[in-house]
């Protein structure tokens, strides 16, 4: 590999008269440099991380004790209770002690909570399908990004749209919370809030028969 004198120089002996200085080859042995280059390449390839962490934005309501929390209409409210073993207990309507709501449970799969949310979100104000249509129009290039964002926010924030209350109990994990917030954005739900769980709801979870 280190063979460099391959040219036809060094034939000075045949010339008569002046003795010329021996012309050395312009080729250099590049092996060490290549070694180094590949070493560095390997190092940087192994240390590089490409996917930057992403963030989801959370806006909490301002805590103000002088203002009563707004009354939420019962029929369009879906309450999700996050509990242990990755279970989500849910009921529609208000937690009325005289008329306790029927509580069911589901899980975090696409057939579980996502199906439920899409179903409810379509049933109550057809928000899901309308936002999906906007999304499609945007992808086809029929509307620009600004319009798409404005319109979808408008549709999501309609007064009649589904309201989701997320209540996590002490046995649920941070992953459950992030997952459920993620489902909110997948299912085009714009009106949701993270609320503290009440004592009666903890009772509800206990009373649900788990098969």
């Amino acid at each position, binding site marked *: *590999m*280190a*063979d*460099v004198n*391959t040219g036809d120089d060094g034939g000075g002996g045949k010339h008569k008269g002046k003795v010329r200085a021996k012309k050395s080859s312009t080729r250099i042995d*590049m*092996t060490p*440099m*290549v070694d180094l*280059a*590949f070493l*560095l*390449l390997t190092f*940087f*390839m192994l*240390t*590089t*991380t*490409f*996917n*930057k*962490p*992403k*963030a*989801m*934005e*959370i*806006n*909490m*309501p*301002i*805590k103000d004790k002088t203002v009563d929390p707004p009354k939420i209409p019962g029929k369009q409210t879906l309450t999700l209770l*996050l509990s242990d073993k990755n279970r989500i207990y849910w009921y529609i309507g208000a937690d009325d002690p005289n008329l306790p709501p029927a509580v069911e449970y589901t899980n975090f799969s*696409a057939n579980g909570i996502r199906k439920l949310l899409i179903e409810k979100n379509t049933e109550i104000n057809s928000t899901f399908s309308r936002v999906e249509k906007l999304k499609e129009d945007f992808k086809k290039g029929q509307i620009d990004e600004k319009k798409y964002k404005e319109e979808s926010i408008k549709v999501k924030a309609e007064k009649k749209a589904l309201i989701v209350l997320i209540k*996590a*109990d*002490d*046995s*649920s*994990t*941070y*992953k*459950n*919370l*992030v*997952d459920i*917030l*993620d489902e909110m*954005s*997948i299912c085009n739900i714009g009106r949701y809030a*993270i609320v*503290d769980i009440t004592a009666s709801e903890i009772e509800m979870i206990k009373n649900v028969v788990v098969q």
Partner: protein
Amino acid sequence: MPRSSPALDMTPMVDLAFLLVTFFMLTTQFRADEPVIVDPPSSVSETIVPDIDLMQIIIDDKGKVFFNIDGKEKRASVLRKMAEKYGVNFTDNEIYRFSIMTSFGMPMKYMKQFLGKDQATQKLFYNDLEKRGEKGIPADSLNNELSDWVLNARYSNPKYRVAIKGDGAAKYPVVKQVIETLQRNKVNKFNFVTNLEVAQ
């Protein structure tokens, strides 16, 4: 048949190698040595976490809370304010050490002892704290040092954006406590740091 020389022209290969080296050198970002490794849950959110003016609250899988802010001068000024509040005297060297390190998680009373150690023994110090159950910044309602850190950080730089980076296995009560602490300090807008996931 004449034997061809075994030496071959390596120039194109070298060109390519250096091109790649340059590319990786320029795109690489070195991650600092964190005292805790967390595995954040994934989401479909595509917002990127900002690099500057970031206040990070890290929750590990055991529910211990760590804190990190960027900016050397800002870190130093936050530590000075905390020292005043908790009646600890730091030397200039200790403040400098604090300003160049990354996230940390310990009660304020151990901070001076911690900053007196070099990097290798700092790890041992964390192990020691963990054994005594005192690792992490106290964030409960009785003793909420996290609240003071957040408050003083916001004093020194009101532009700080808050990001909560939690391990997926962290229990909800800790997360709730951190959120409540933030809300008490009038931080109602914050981020959850997640990994990118492709929606099914």
